[in-house]
């Protein structure tokens, strides 16, 4: 799915948190969003997912303005995952149930996905008893299971252990490579960005400071703010 | 005496009297009229608790009230005999009336005339709708007496036992277009709001005698016996009796209660 943002402004009361003149994310691209805390990354993701209104400006998905159809075909994984008060299985199966997939097939697809993500043993646990990282895994699985055209991921691996991180990154990468899913990934982890992203958006104080090819933004940014940020990242 | 004054609430004033009475008495407005004049005369305030007859007697029995004004002669006499009250005095009477729909579907007015027993017999035979208070009140007790005189045990779908006060029972009769027994005062006070008329009145059996009883002061030391006695004396006095007789003349053109203290 191609996304075009034009003259987007978002205020909370007096406080302006987003101001983006233009941004175009190509269909099938894997785009990282980086920037300091409070830069407006989560707000941008929420707006793109249709979960928060804009103060002014427009967003076009494949040339069309947002509509029910568009939202049917994308999903968001939040920074703080919210799981349904039911089993892990139910959480992952839910999007498939909505899409009236046959019961048998749901069973197969959920099980297969759980195996690939090494979390079969969690399937019949109640969602509210999971550890922080386990909950994040379930939220990602729930987003991947129905193969949406656009995937908005807000720090999806912040609480994930390294072994699981490898698995999760490969799952995300696969979705982009195999299914052609357009992916926006918010991350503070420069190594992760390097491993996964084709493009990077660097944001600060609600504005897009730099947008371009990953290697360029990370290793030879034009913008001085970006440079400082990335240098800090690399040291860490 | 000084002890009572020290309770602080009524210093320099006579302590109030609690009177338990029936809702029908209170709803007629008589007590508002009468007791405000009593207060002018004696400085004693009377607090009126309007409840069902059964509860009024219970309040007396338990010593919660100081004086009772009710209209269930048999129960009252029993009450005095059991030692709960000192003496029962006749105060006044009004009368019961049988009321029913304006078009009188059972033609009771023609066929029974003044005879209440005949009237209830017709209702029972024709299975006309009859709403009974069903709450063991004075009015209910009177109604049961008429059935007994007619040799009928009222039962069946036509006989509706409401378990409610007088006003509400009339409202039910009005809504269901049935017959019911009411005291005249309550009926008159509600006459404009309902589509019911008097079908039987004037039978001597329909007299509704009110009595006043001071509660036995031995029950507990909080009973205001003196005030109760004063109230009784005042109501039975010429002045009190005259006021009772005059009440209702302006609004209804007739006395609602006829004083008959000895």
């Amino acid at each position, binding site marked *: 799915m191609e996304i075009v943002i034009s003259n987007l402004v978002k205020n909370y009361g007096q406080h302006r948190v987003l101001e983006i003149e233009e941004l175009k994310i190509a269909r099938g691209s894997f785009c990282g969003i980086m920037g300091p805390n409070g830069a407006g990354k989560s707000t941008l993701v929420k707006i793109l997912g249709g979960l928060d209104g804009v103060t002014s400006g427009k967003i076009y998905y494949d040339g069309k303005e947002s509509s029910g159809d568009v939202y049917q075909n994308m999903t968001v994984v939040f920074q703080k995952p919210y799981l349904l008060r039911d089993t892990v299985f139910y959480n992952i199966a839910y999007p498939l149930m909505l899409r009236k997939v046959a019961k048998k097939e749901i069973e197969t697809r959920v099980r297969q996905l759980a195996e690939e993500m090494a979390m079969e043993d969690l399937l019949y646990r109640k969602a509210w008893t999971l550890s922080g990282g386990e909950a994040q895994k379930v939220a990602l699985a729930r987003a991947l299971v129905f193969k949406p055209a656009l995937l908005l991921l807000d720090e999806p691996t912040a609480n994930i252990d390294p072994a699981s991180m490898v698995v999760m990154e490969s799952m995300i990468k696969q979705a982009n490579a195999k299914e052609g899913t357009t992916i926006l990934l918010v991350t503070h982890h420069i190594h992760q960005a390097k491993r996964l992203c084709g493009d990077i958006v660097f944001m600060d104080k609600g504005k897009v400071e730099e947008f371009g090819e990953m290697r360029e933004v990370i290793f030879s940014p034009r913008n001085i703010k970006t440079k400082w940020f990335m240098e800090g990242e690399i040291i860490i | 005496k000084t002890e009572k004054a020290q309770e602080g609430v009524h210093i320099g004033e006579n302590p109030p009297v609690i009177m338990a009475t029936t809702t029908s008495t209170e709803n007629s407005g008589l007590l508002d009229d009468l007791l405000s004049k009593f207060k002018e005369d004696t400085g004693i305030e009377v607090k009126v608790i309007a409840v069902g007859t059964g509860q009024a007697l219970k309040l007396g029995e338990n010593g919660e009230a100081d004086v009772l004004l009710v209209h269930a002669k048999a129960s009252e006499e029993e009450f005095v005999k059991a030692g709960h009250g000192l003496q029962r005095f006749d105060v006044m009477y009004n009368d019961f009336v049988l009321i029913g729909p304006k078009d009188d579907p059972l033609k009771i007015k023609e066929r029974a005339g003044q005879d209440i027993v005949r009237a209830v017999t017709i209702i029972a035979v024709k299975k006309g709708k009859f709403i009974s208070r069903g709450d*063991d009140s004075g009015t209910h007790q009177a109604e049961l007496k008429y059935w007994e005189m007619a040799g009928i045990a009222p039962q069946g779908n036509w006989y509706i*036992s409401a378990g409610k006060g007088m006003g509400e029972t009339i409202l039910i009769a009005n809504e269901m277009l049935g017959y019911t027994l009411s005291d005249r005062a309550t009926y008159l006070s509600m006459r404009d709001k309902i589509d019911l008329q008097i079908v039987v009145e004037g039978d001597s059996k329909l007299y509704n005698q009110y009595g006043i009883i001071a509660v036995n002061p031995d029950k507990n030391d909080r009973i205001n016996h003196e005030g109760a006695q004063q109230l009784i004396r005042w109501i039975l006095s010429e002045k009190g009796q005259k006021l009772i007789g005059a009440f209702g003349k302006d609004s209804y053109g007739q006395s609602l209660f006829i004083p008959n203290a000895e």
Partner: protein
Amino acid sequence: MREILEGCKQAIILLLSFDQEVYSIIFLSLYVSLMATFFATLLAIPVGILLGIKDFQWKNIVIRFVYTLMSLPPVIAGLVVFLLISRKGPFGFLGLVYTPTAMIIAQTCLVIPIITGIVYNGTKEKGKTVQILAKTLGADSRHTLLLLMKELRIDILTGIVTGYGRAVSEVGAVMIVGGNIKGHTRVMTTTITMLQSMGNYEMAIALGMVLLGISFTVNTILYYYQRGE
């Protein structure tokens, strides 16, 4: 004091006597209040949830209105329903006055704002989050509502229990529209009031105990259902 203890004893005797009249009063109480709660729930759950997640003009006023109606005196609810269905009222031709149906209608009116208010309160807190999640997973509005009902089930349950508790314990509305007619519209609370007005305190308390006993049973059942979580 003696009456209270005596009342407790009588409550047991009453239940063990298997008196048909007593049982039919208990049964009618439960029937009327459960039906009223049921119908109120049908309306109140969607309305409460929509109030919680949708923004519209006048929303504030509507909500304060619902909160206000939560403290609607039963007598007024009863009276208004009575005037509407009474012989001369606009719905008089239905002949509903002094029937269990009338009692159900009056209690339904009383309970709707209570359940609506409680469901709205629950929805306000996490409804938006659930709605957003449902949207991101591709739910249409019907499925969103179903999901909200599932996620808010504890709040909904609280609302239903509170509404039922209000219905079964109120006397003002059923007294006016039902009339406390023996064998037809006599329920526990109207009987208690009548007994009390007849000075029969023991029996009044005994029936009150029975009423509370039933509420306790209902709560216990719901408690075990809830604990399954």
